[in-house]
């Protein structure tokens, strides 16, 4: 089960003859539990397009995507209820403005479950639960989503998808536009949701620190091609990331610089700032 991409291509057809290949020949498998995957790559590398394939919002130009046993190919098959796929794989868009529309937070979160014919009372319960999961108190239930701050809106939009109880949760740049503390809070939230429920969570991000600290697996896209699929450790142990148009996390960069400047032998592969501090102390003592 989970999601299997088989030689998936997707191109946007342009206004005039030309077309633009957003993703090229992608094959990969995503398990339906216990993964926290980050999807990285420079702007325009096809991250969002790939994410939209994961719950059949767009159909591949060629190749196939198998999502929880349902085969999605270039042609729309009338027998397949694509809507059901979206309940299994939830996709949160980058900007919460694209989905918030109700006058209260509660109603907005309930919109998803109600679309899948969950009874109203249960939907209310789901809304409360989802709101708690994203770390907002119940006092938010009756507030107007448009009067919330950017971070709160983002959390509400995530709750709107979480209320569907998807097996795989895909988030398109959830940390963009948030302050560093907000980013970390959100990533901790995903980590805890993943630990608690065993769901697979896929996060698109540009922040290598977050990738290094949180991810169990990294997918790197470059110009539409999947160029790396593995653990963050093996990615950042590569001598050069310039071919991927990526940078190293801050901890690695700082420790490498310290080693060069002071001719120390500190192990530069430290995931968090506190680990790095301990490593520096140890390095200078010896």
């Amino acid at each position, binding site marked *: 089960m989970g999601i299997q991409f088989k030689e998936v291509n997707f191109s946007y057809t342009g206004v005039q003859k030309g077309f633009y290949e957003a993703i090229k020949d992608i094959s990969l498998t995503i398990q339906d539990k216990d993964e926290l995957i980050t999807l990285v790559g420079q702007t325009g590398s096809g991250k969002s397009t790939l994410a939209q394939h994961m719950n059949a919002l767009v159909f591949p130009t060629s190749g196939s995507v198998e999502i929880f046993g349902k085969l999605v190919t270039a042609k729309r098959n009338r027998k397949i209820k694509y809507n059901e796929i979206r309940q299994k794989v939830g996709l949160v868009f980058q900007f919460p403005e694209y989905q*918030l529309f109700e006058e209260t937070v509660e109603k907005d979160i309930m919109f998803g479950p109600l679309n899948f014919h969950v009874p109203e009372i249960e939907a209310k319960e789901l809304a409360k639960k989802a709101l708690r999961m994203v770390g907002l108190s119940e006092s938010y239930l009756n507030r107007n989503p448009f009067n919330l701050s950017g971070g709160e809106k983002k959390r509400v939009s995530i709750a709107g998808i979480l209320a569907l109880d998807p097996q795989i949760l895909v988030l398109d740049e959830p940390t963009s536009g948030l302050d560093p503390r907000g980013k970390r809070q959100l990533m901790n939230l995903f980590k805890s949701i993943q630990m608690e429920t065993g769901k697979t969570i896929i996060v698109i991000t540009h922040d290598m620190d977050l990738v290094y600290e949180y991810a169990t697996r990294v997918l790197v896209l470059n110009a539409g091609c999947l160029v790396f699929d593995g653990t963050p450790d093996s990615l950042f142990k590569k001598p050069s990331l310039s071919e991927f148009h990526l940078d190293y996390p801050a901890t690695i960069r700082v420790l490498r610089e310290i080693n060069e400047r002071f001719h120390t032998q500190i192990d530069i592969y430290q995931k968090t700032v506190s680990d790095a501090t301990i490593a520096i102390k140890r390095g200078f003592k010896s």
Partner: protein
Amino acid sequence: MKNIIIGQYIPGTGFLYKLDPRTKIIAVLILMVAVFLLKSITQLMIAFGIAIIILIIGKISIVRVARGLKPIFILLVFTFVFQIFFNKEGTVWVDETLTFSLVSLIVLVAWTIVWRLLTKLKKFKMMLFFLYIAGVYLILRYLTYGTIFSTFNFVVHEKGVEMSIFVVIRLLIIITLSTVLTLTTKPTDLTQGIEKLMRPLKYIGISSDDFALIISISLRYIPTILDEANKIMLAQASRGADIAEGKLKDKIKQIISLLVPMFIIAFKRSEDLADAMESRNFVPGRERTRIYDLHFGLLDLMVALMTIGLLTGSIMARVLWIG
């Protein structure tokens, strides 16, 4: 969604592209008047020939223009049929009795189903349509068995046929002319041309600047808004609101879920745009200069003279009844 072309401007190199938009707008208007002055099919045929020659000289693909005519194909057919049926002048050409009987109605329904199935093939659509119409005629004409519900006299007069051809050709010419205008003029140039032409209206209190600004901003934002609409649709589809699937009852709610974010984003965008314009010192109503100002050149003069020539020609034709 992504393939919608706004305006039909196609970049090219013909002489029509080098013309001042004002010349083109006025020339098209004058030529339309000239076409309406014509009285006989022969004259119209000549005018149609001139239109084709303009296309060829202007290096515009005739296929392109023909494709532009597609949406109004129904209108042309409708006009044609309307004229044939309701014009009762001149000698009678056809006088047949069409019968609506049990048998003919059943065959008609079957024929329609066959036609609908065949149109799935996508090729020869136009031909199939004419075949269908011919079939309908034959069925109504010759299948007179069974209970007869009503009969209907199908009468075609000479003038009817003439008028219908006349009207259709006239429409064709006019649409070709306006297609040429939009094919060869950028929307921005077009609005600038309209703005300049509307200048005199400021004496009666209408600001052509504001008008042109409104048009160009709306044109500029149509693709952007379409893009946003697409994203909103995807975002709501991933919450189970897929417009393609689902029942009518749910669809109403789903449409609201698209409209509200759409409005909010549109308002936000317009606020941002207003701020951006103000921060670049835009003051409504104040005189502004352009980077590319319009020039009325030699080519424009020639086209203007030609246009006047054609108009004179058609006035002469009308007055002297040539053809």
